[in-house]
């Protein structure tokens, strides 16, 4: 029975359809978040002149926004370099993480020998490796991509293994009884059932990859948003500092939604593929 109720939960999770179903009066909830954010920004905007704070200590949201518009070329140029590092690190994470997850899932040797090592390695704080990576890989893109890769790799492997293991074993019996070989079992059942987990891992990984790239830039860089922020910091340009932080967040949000949209595309394709 436990298995059954688990399945029902899985099934009631609607795929692709983003219907959240607001209850009567639910519109309040929808606007509460936006209203709250506006209130905080308004308060911030008001408090700076009231408290007599200089731009140097705390710039107002308005001056940050107008600085972002003015410096859009500078910001987007540096954002571009950071974006490349993040995407490269994440892609390497996927290219190595997914095959490794498959090896762990299918091979006992990998599961017994490699998995514990992976978990042990995960306890090493990746951020602490940044100076070492610079030492070995230099000042270019390599240490940033490596850091983004190292930090995003683990959630990809774990979520894929968990996703593959979570499959109801009876589903395997079902397709086997139809005469499916392992190849078909994988593509018809195992992979589709694991996709929500895999994409969940991707979403965590892409956010972490941004952190990895920025940390790499903090340690040694000549370009990228992390570098720009350190520059702003050393020149006591707090407004640009804030503008950079917001650009980093926007980059993270953008990448998150790229994954999110890819997920619904893939799932949609799965639903309609024959």
């Amino acid at each position, binding site marked *: *029975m436990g*298995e*059954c109720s688990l*399945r029902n939960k*899985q*099934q*009631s*999770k*609607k*795929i692709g359809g983003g219907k959240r179903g607001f209850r009567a009066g639910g519109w309040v909830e929808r606007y509460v978040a936006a209203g709250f954010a506006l209130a905080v920004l308004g308060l911030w905007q008001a408090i700076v002149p009231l408290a007599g704070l200089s731009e140097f200590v705390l710039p107002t949201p308005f001056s940050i926004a107008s600085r972002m518009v003015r410096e859009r070329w500078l910001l987007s140029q540096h954002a571009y370099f950071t974006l490349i590092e993040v995407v490269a690190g994440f892609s390497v994470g996927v290219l190595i993480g997914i095959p490794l997850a498959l090896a762990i899932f299918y091979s006992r040797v990998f599961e017994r020998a490699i998995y514990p090592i992976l978990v042990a390695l995960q306890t090493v704080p990746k951020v602490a490796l940044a100076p070492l990576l610079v030492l070995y890989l230099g000042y270019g893109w390599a240490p940033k991509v490596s850091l983004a890769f190292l930090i995003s790799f683990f959630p990809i492997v774990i979520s894929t293994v968990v996703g593959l293991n979570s499959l*109801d074993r*009876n*589903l395997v*019996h*079902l*397709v*086997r*009884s*139809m*005469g*499916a070989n392992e190849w*078909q079992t994988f593509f*018809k*059942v195992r992979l*589709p*059932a694991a996709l929500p987990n895999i994409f969940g891992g991707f979403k965590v990984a892409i956010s972490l990859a941004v952190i990895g790239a920025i940390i790499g830039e903090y340690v040694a860089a000549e370009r990228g948003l992390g570098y720009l922020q350190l520059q702003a910091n050393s020149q006591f340009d707090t407004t640009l500092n804030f503008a950079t932080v917001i650009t980093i967040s926007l980059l993270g949000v953008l990448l998150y939604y790229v994954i999110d949209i890819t997920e619904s595309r893939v*799932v949609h394709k*799965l*639903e309609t593929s*024959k």
Partner: protein
Amino acid sequence: MIATEGSGGKVDMIERTDSMNSIERSKNGATVEISQVSKIYQTREGDEVVALDNIDFKIGAGSFVAVVGPSGCGKSTLLSMLAGLTPASTGQISINGEKISKPHRKTGVVFQSDLLLYWRTILDNILLPIEIKKLDVDACRPRAEALLKQVGLDGFGNKYPSELSGGMRQRVAICRAMIQDPGLLLMDEPFGALDALTREQMIMDLQAVWLRIQNTVLFITHGIEEAVFLGDRVLVMSPRPGRVDLDLKIEIPRPRKWRLAHEDKDFQGYVRQIRDIFEAKGVLVAH
């Protein structure tokens, strides 16, 4: 309308004749032969557990055989072996005279839970066996729709499993097993997870569908009434070691009505016979 598989392997549609009884029996049914089959499991401690002990019976083409027994009597193991998913330790099983070592192409299986793939529409779930066997999916679409209609789910083809109730989903699972016109339909406690009223309806519906298709069915259950109602024959099994204690022929004309269980003397006689076995074997203990 019902559909049958044509000689060329293509799916044709034929109009159902008005009198359902005119359809010849054993037209599509496979024959099953289980000879001296035992299944011995090795436990982790190295002990041997005899799940099935020297099972030996035959099922004629187009016959509905219900297997009834308590949990642990090996009935699911038996089904799994017939499905070609579990090898027998000794003895052999053949379907239509072919010894099986892997899933037989003419076998359809219905499990206790519906096992529908939630990312596929109802129609695509039903067509899954066709896809896996790399047959012509488009050619089978009308048959899938006809099957849905037969189980009262006309127009549900483009919905997703999450939009259907438990009983409806199990009907879809039955359609999926029927899509390739299985000569042998294996059902492993298919209604076990349903509520009592839904189950009663499903039992009647299964009888109706089977009376049209008339294939060979092996139906596993722990419900005595369910077994007597559906079966041409009821095999009564007991555990430790799992063996067939009684092979009971049910001679009640079809279509049978569920009220027989409460009104018909013959029906109750069969039920009593099975209960007597369970009491003698200590499966049911009177206080």
